[in-house]
């Protein structure tokens, strides 16, 4: 009895002296609130250990009361050492990552690609590209083969024309890739998974473009938790949110609106030439709902919408054709349902369609251009893995458009890039529809471990020309070693007349599709030897033969009607392109260079350089990353673009304008383009959110890179139009 009393007292005393408490919490990634599972957590000095479960939860059932230290060591994260005590009510832990959004080098080698003519930039890459203001499409301009264009709403690929590039979102064509002449692309950048750039020799999945394709692949929502972000820079602000709706469905939604119009209004007050009546504004929206029907079956529904508006009054000018109220409203929307099913181990199905509206209302004084179009595009692809050696892809790529177009525009000649408006305007009201329907077949045949050959075919019907075109394309890769690849691509491409080129009222209904044959040979070498540091290079030569190009003609038919344009144009493009990246410790150097010779020929103007014949185009990018800081710089050097000299003018006594007299087409060149950009990024990691700030200074040296001339009323005086001045852009992004 005495012993029992002693033991009880001892136990009581012990439990008083060494009382124990259960410590519970959740281990998060600092800033992102991402759950860290299967991570060991230690409590010192008691040498207790717990491991987080699949939800990041941990529990220490018996921790002696009083002070103690959490210790967490995890690869890729800073060591956590946190002093606390058992009285603390909240024991959630936040582990700070060593690197957030590391700017990764472009991987050019490693494996045989489905399409050797394709390059892509991931979100991580384009978000930090210097000079791109976090924009995926602007970042593409750092790649070889892309022309340098300031203030352009289009991407010019390998010496082709702007009209020869097609823009798609998840494979479905959209009418516009940029807001307001290249300000920013039409989708929230962080909603974009990657941007694909397809140039000479691209595969059979795409068509209707002689130059190439820019495709934005949007991404699914993260499903671990609901998160959001808000962002603002000098032109716009926006927000994105994403998260799980249920166990097998998720949603990502974003919206952006501009406010730079208010700044523009202030600037415009200082200018005599025009008055702003409605500030330029844009807005865009993006929603992606994703539903996992089963492990092998997935459905998604994407909605995207974009709107640009501008109104101003041009008080006076040298041409009555560009005086008066200017109004411009451009909207488009797409709803894109998509169904993906892994039918069996060999077969995969991917079906999607896009339904949408395109509206363009442009007014200039009494003149106008009003387009209202309904567009339906449809894509299907069936992947069939016939054997380990052979995989087949068969697909459809269909586009149908119904449109109403009303216009009253002056007849206009723009040969040699020199515009001169005639005295007459053409009125037309057109209801029409056109269909471009293609089926394609891609076969990837692995002849052996070293050689892969891909004979492909695309067949397409253009209702505008009422013709069906067969377009054989081939792709081959030979692997000299595990890090050295030789690539070959070639193909035939057709592009239907566009922009009313075949309109009976302001074009020529008899013209045919334009044609191009591409050849690409490239060598890809990865010197990194399996690590992520070292050198990778991609060197290629390309050649394009252009036939049946649509060019304007002043010839007339026997009844006096103007032919306006015909298929008598031809041309060639040849070039060398280089892309390299070198990463060592905290430094990365990226470079791209293109040598280009792009020529055109037509019966009325002879042979001349293409407007986008930029002989040398060099981009050098240097990146230094340390801790939460990132510094990057881009140097761009581009040969001056060609232009057509104006040798004089003739006074048009009817319309009171001077009509320029063109010299030889594109026979002179602007000064070379030189631009240095600098970008500084800083991340501030807080417990439950991250603040990212960047300063992107474009044209640091304030070089006058104007690639245009302003002329006086009779073209007797000219001066170089102002290019982009030194332009600091500040952006902030908060993620939680």
């Amino acid at each position, binding site marked *: 009895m005495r012993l029992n009393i002693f033991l009880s007292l001892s136990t009581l005393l012990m439990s008083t002296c060494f009382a124990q408490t259960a410590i519970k919490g959740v281990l998060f990634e600092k800033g992102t609130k991402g759950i860290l599972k299967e991570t060991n957590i230690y409590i010192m000095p008691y040498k207790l250990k717990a491991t987080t479960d699949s939800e990041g939860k941990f529990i220490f059932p018996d921790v002696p009361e009083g002070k103690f230290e959490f210790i967490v060591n995890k690869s890729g994260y800073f060591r956590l050492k946190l002093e606390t005590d058992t009285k603390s009510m909240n024991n959630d832990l936040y582990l700070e990552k060593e690197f957030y959004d590391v700017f990764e080098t472009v991987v050019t080698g490693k494996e045989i690609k489905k399409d050797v003519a394709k390059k892509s930039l991931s979100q991580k890459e384009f978000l930090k590209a210097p000079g791109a203001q976090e924009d995926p499409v602007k970042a593409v301009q750092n790649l070889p083969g892309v022309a340098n264009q300031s203030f352009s709403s289009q991407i010019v690929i390998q010496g082709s024309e702007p009209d020869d590039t097609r823009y798609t979102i998840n494979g479905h064509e959209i009418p516009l890739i940029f807001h307001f002449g290249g300000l920013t692309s039409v989708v929230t950048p962080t909603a974009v998974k990657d941007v694909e750039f397809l140039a000479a020799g691209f595969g059979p999945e795409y068509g209707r473009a002689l130059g190439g394709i820019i495709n934005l692949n949007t991404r699914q929502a993260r499903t671990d938790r609901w998160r959001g972000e808000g962002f603002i820079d000098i032109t716009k602000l926006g927000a994105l949110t994403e998260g799980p709706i249920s166990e097998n469905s998720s949603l990502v939604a974003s919206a952006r609106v501009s406010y730079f119009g208010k700044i523009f209004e202030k600037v415009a007050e200082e200018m005599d030439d025009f008055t702003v009546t409605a500030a330029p504004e844009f807005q865009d929206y993006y929603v992606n709902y994703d539903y996992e029907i089963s492990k092998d079956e997935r459905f998604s529904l994407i909605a995207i919408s974009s709107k640009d508006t501008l109104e101003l009054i041009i008080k006076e000018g040298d041409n009555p054709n560009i005086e008066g109220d200017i109004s411009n409203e451009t909207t488009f929307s797409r709803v894109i349902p998509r169904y993906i099913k892994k039918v069996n181990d060999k077969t995969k199905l991917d079906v999607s369609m896009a339904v949408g509206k395109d509206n363009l209302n442009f007014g200039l004084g009494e003149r106008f251009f009003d387009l209202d179009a309904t567009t339906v595009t449809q894509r299907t692809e069936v992947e069939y893995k016939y054997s380990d050696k052979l995989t087949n892809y068969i697909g459809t790529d269909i586009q149908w458009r119904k449109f109403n177009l009303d216009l009253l525009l002056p007849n206009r000649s723009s040969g040699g890039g020199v515009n001169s408006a005639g005295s007459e305007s053409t009125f037309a009201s057109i209801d029409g529809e056109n269909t471009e329907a293609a089926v394609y077949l891609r076969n990837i045949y692995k002849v052996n471990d070293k050689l892969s050959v891909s004979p492909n075919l695309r067949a397409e019907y253009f209702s505008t020309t009422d013709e069906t075109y067969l377009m054989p394309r081939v792709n081959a890769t030979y692997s000299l070693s595990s890090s050295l690849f030789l690539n070959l691509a070639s193909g035939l491409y057709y592009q239907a007349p566009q*922009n009313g080129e075949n309109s009976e009222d302001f074009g020529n209904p008899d013209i045919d599709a334009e044609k191009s044959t591409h050849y690409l040979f490239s060598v890809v070498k990865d010197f990194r030897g399996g690590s992520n540091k070292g050198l990778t290079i991609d060197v290629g030569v390309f050649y394009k033969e252009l036939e049946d190009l649509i060019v304007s003609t002043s010839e007339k038919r026997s009844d006096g009607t103007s032919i306006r344009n015909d298929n008598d144009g031809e041309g060639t493009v040849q070039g060398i392109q280089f892309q390299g990246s070198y990463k060592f410790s905290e430094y990365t150097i990226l470079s791209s260079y293109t040598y280009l010779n792009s020529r055109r020929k037509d019966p009325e103007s002879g042979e001349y350089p293409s407007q986008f014949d930029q002989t040398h185009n060099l981009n050098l990018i240097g990146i230094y990353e340390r801790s939460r800081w990132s510094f990057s710089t881009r140097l761009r050097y581009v040969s001056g673009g060609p232009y057509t000299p104006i040798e004089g003018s003739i006074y048009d006594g009817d*319309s009171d304008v001077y009509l320029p007299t063109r010299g030889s087409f594109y026979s002179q060149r602007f000064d070379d383009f030189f631009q240095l950009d600098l970008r500084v990024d800083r991340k501030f990691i807080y417990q439950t959110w991250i603040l990212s700030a960047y300063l992107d200074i474009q044209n640091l040296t304030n070089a006058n890179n*104007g690639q245009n001339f302003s002329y006086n009323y009779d073209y007797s005086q000219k001066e170089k139009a102002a290019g982009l001045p030194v332009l600091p852009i500040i952006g902030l992004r908060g993620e939680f």
Partner: protein
Amino acid sequence: MRNIINCFSLLSLNFILISCGGGDFTERSELEGLRVLSISANTPEVNASAPSTVILSPVISYVDGGNTTLDYSWEACPDPGIDFGADINCDSSPSTLKQVGSNTFSTSSLSGSSYTGLATSLSVNITPAILAYFSNLDSDLQFNGVDYIVVLKYSDQNSDAKIDALKRIKLTSKTTGLNVNESFGDIIFNDSILSAYPTVEGIIKISSPTPGQTYSKQTNVGLKSFEEEMYISWYSSTGEYLFNRTDTGEDNTFTPEGSSGVFVVVYRDGRGGVFTKITNF
């Protein structure tokens, strides 16, 4: 259509950017050197059913060229396709459809060191050959009008000064509603007829402008009516206008410089109808 959309969105922005340059250029309203300011035709639009003659009256200005001789030549032919990039000349025209002429013109007919006024008028014949050519053209084209162009070239015998100008005579199958030259009453400065060179900055405009015509054209949806858009071009040898060009009813502002100068005001319908008033102080 995608590139049309791109094109228009770019056009707006480009205009703004281009507007940022060119501040040091000579204003078009400032008379300087040898210029053609207007060319009026007594019948800007001609019914092409019978031979006729069209009289063209050019107004030229030659600052500091008031006592010299100008060589001038002209050629006339069917429009070779100027709106679609053809060179503005008659080199490719059949000789049967082409007319040429040349002469000299003395600028000493007005006293003073400068000349601003009418040059020698030209007579352009609408010949049977031209009418035969016209009759073979597309009927819509005939209705809407076919341009018979006149290219004038002036050059100073005593200097390098030269100027080329273009005038269109519209040949049409229309018999009524042909285009005419609109007109206005006076140049009004600060609500009074401009009767002396202004001494202060003031509002300048025109009085009693005749309105633009309603005209019809064959379009792809049939016959459609349009209104002429009238506008006024302002010129002076001294002083400065706020705007080089205004719409009808829109005021302009003139700031004088010195005590004398020539005012030229041209009223146009944009289709070939022209009226010019010259006031010299």
